């Protein structure tokens, strides 16, 4: 039992932190947001060059190996860096689904392209009525010859407007909220009958609603087993929940750092704000909750790679629920302690706060994960 990073992991961390410190930042972020698709393709190519897009993909499938902890290290740095590039959609969600669910020949085709930065993916699993429940699926897939025909509507699929393929959950049998009967299909984004309504998100990323109107797919589009897609989706979402918790820890660390720096620099009543004990103690709460979130995020990352599914599920929910509570506290306190500057668009604090808040609304909020933990207890 140990809870330290390996030498390779320290290298990943240092490289990522250096990149976001030296080559990224709020101005760069704003430029990337204004580009078509809302992110920078040259930067994406650099991610590929640095090996980031190959993380978590086995070496025999064109990746560089590594596990969820390695990805968490990267996600933590991306949080602090406020990256808008679609790592979460393509590598975390898309990559995990293909790794766990695609046929070997399809893996061999797609994963090297993903690692090279040439393939973008999205996962469309939520619907207007589903909230955070993965089993609440109305989109239908009817068998049609050797393939299927998909009809339905999915909501808030990250970066769906700029991807090559979209993984879609659809019901192949059973009732609306049955656990069985869900199948995941990997659909070409330009398939006839598929339309994406693309929009910016509050936290500066892009997402899209996906309409499926008689979309035909081959049998080979199925990820995992027909009617058995839910466990696959759940494992991918749990992994994403663990990893956005690490991203949240990075955002919290950045907010705490900036707030402490502001308290030292800003003078009122003839002395730095940081001299006031009431404010010192509030900054301390921010620091502590950052560390606690970080601890749970890495525990959850470790658990995602183990054989114990209930432990992985539980750890993901614990980390995500903590990230929700701590994110709200730290985001609100950072804005408050920055005073008027905290509510401007100019300062990074508001951008961190918005991303942190929207993380709570991704892959299940605190209430959702508390429900889930209560059900497991």
């Amino acid at each position: 039992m140990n809870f330290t990073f390996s030498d390779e992991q320290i290298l990943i961390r240092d490289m990522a932190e250096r990149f976001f410190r030296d080559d990224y930042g709020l101005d760069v972020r704003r430029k990337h947001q204004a580009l078509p698709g809302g992110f920078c393709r040259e930067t994406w190519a650099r991610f590929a060059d640095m090996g980031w897009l190959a993380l978590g993909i086995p070496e025999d499938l064109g990746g560089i190996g590594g596990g969820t902890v390695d990805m968490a290290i990267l996600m933590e740095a991306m949080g602090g860096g406020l990256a808008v590039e679609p790592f979460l959609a393509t590598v975390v969600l898309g990559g995990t689904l293909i790794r766990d669910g695609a046929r070997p020949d399809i893996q061999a085709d797609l994963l090297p392209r993903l690692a090279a930065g040439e393939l973008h993916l999205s996962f469309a699993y939520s619907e207007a009525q589903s909230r955070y429940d993965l089993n609440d699926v109305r989109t239908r897939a009817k068998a049609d010859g050797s393939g299927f025909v998909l009809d339905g509507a999915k909501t808030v699929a990250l970066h769906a407007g700029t991807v090559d393929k979209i993984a879609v959950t659809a019901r192949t049998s059973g009732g609306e909220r049955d656990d069985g009967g869900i199948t995941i299909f990997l659909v070409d984004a330009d398939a006839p009958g598929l339309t994406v309504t693309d929009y910016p998100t509050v936290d500066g990323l892009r997402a899209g609603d996906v309409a499926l109107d008689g979309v035909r797919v081959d049998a080979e589009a199925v990820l995992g087993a027909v009617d058995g897609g839910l466990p696959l989706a759940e494992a991918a979402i749990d992994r994403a929940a663990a990893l956005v918790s690490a991203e949240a820890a990075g955002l919290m660390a950045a907010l705490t750092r900036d707030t402490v720096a502001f308290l030292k620099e800003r003078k009122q009543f003839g002395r730095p704000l940081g001299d006031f004990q009431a404010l010192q103690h509030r900054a301390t709460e921010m620091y502590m909750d950052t560390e606690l979130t970080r601890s749970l995020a890495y525990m959850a990352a470790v658990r995602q790679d183990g054989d114990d599914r209930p432990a992985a599920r539980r750890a993901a929910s614990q980390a995500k629920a903590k990230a929700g509570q701590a994110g709200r506290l730290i985001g609100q306190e950072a804005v408050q302690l920055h005073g008027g500057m905290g509510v401007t668009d100019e300062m990074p604090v508001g951008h961190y706060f918005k991303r942190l808040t929207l993380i709570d609304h991704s892959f299940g909020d605190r209430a959702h994960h508390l429900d889930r933990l209560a059900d497991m207890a």
Partner: protein
Amino acid sequence: MDLNLTTEEQAFQDDVRGFLRANIPPAIKRKVDLGLKLVKDDYVVWQRILYEQGWIAPGWPKEYGGPGWSPVQRFLYEEELAAASSPRLITFGLKMLGPVLIEFGTPEQKAHYLPRILASEDWWCQGFSEPGAGSDLASLTTRAVRDGDHYIVNGQKTWTTLAQYADWIFCLVRTSNEGKKQQGISFLLIDMKTPGVTVRPIKTLDGGQEINDVFLENVKVPAENLVGKENDGWTIAKFLLSHERFGIAGVARSKKQMERVRDIAGKEMKRGRPLIEDARFRERMAEVEIELTALEMTELRLLSEEAAGRKPGPEASILKLKGTQVQQGITELLLEAVGNRAHAFDPGILEDEWPGMGNDGPPVPEHAATVASHYFNWRKASIYGGSNEIQRSIIAKAILGL
């Protein structure tokens, strides 16, 4: 990063678990499980069993009688102690004075006191706080004046835990008023049997009696009982308060207490179903467990860093602060779980034997008898050992640089 135990760690855990479960006296285990009062004999009997096994002082270097365990082994040991319903090991000798003497003591002091601490021959108590010196400890005024081969000590110590059992007290005393107030403090060992030492119990809000005032009136203390240099006691006090981070968070005990929450919630009923099936209560449990797991993982992170050679730092303050918040959160869960059974007060729980006080006590079910008392008693946790406000100030200053 690996949260699984290695084969060796697994074997160690099995070994420790087997021994502790087989050797804990059932009467002591029962008291711990029900939160009943433990008396001196209970602690001493159990500590001697661990002493005979060589496990009484896991934090001490091997040359002084420690078992030479790795941080992970110590972590597992704490876990198994709690799981086996071990009483808390009395920290004053084992975790406070012992490390101080190992670091600052003379060869004679080490040779005399350390073996006696290990064997539970001396019961130590801590003479730090005074009526006028709580969080501002350095403003203490208990005075020690050198008189030939002795110091003459006058003053008052307070909140002294289990002083009624103690053979010795280690005290911070003022030996100089020169310079900063921290500079005139010395660390002195005082035999409680010395004329002029008086112990007066302080009754606490739970009805119990574990803390005391200790009055020192012209107490004659041999000069050889000074630890470290005269006027250098503040350095020792700071060492003592920050040295021991193992177990400071109380994670293992809190996990055991969460089992108690489950157990009680399985017995208490709500709307015809066991409380444990109530969604809202389960959610409250989940909230506390998240904090507890976060604390455990943070402790593991710090221990891993320590094992990799990093010196213990001010992060220990997080463990103390969050640890006591979690502990207090669990006392609230327990209190909520027993519902209106929290009302009845049986004074018998404060005595050595319970039940057994005759039929004059109220009919409190065994699982609920001590819960309210425990809730009130445990408010102390965020006050002692540097209050949580002091811990926040330490973090603000030492980590955040404010």
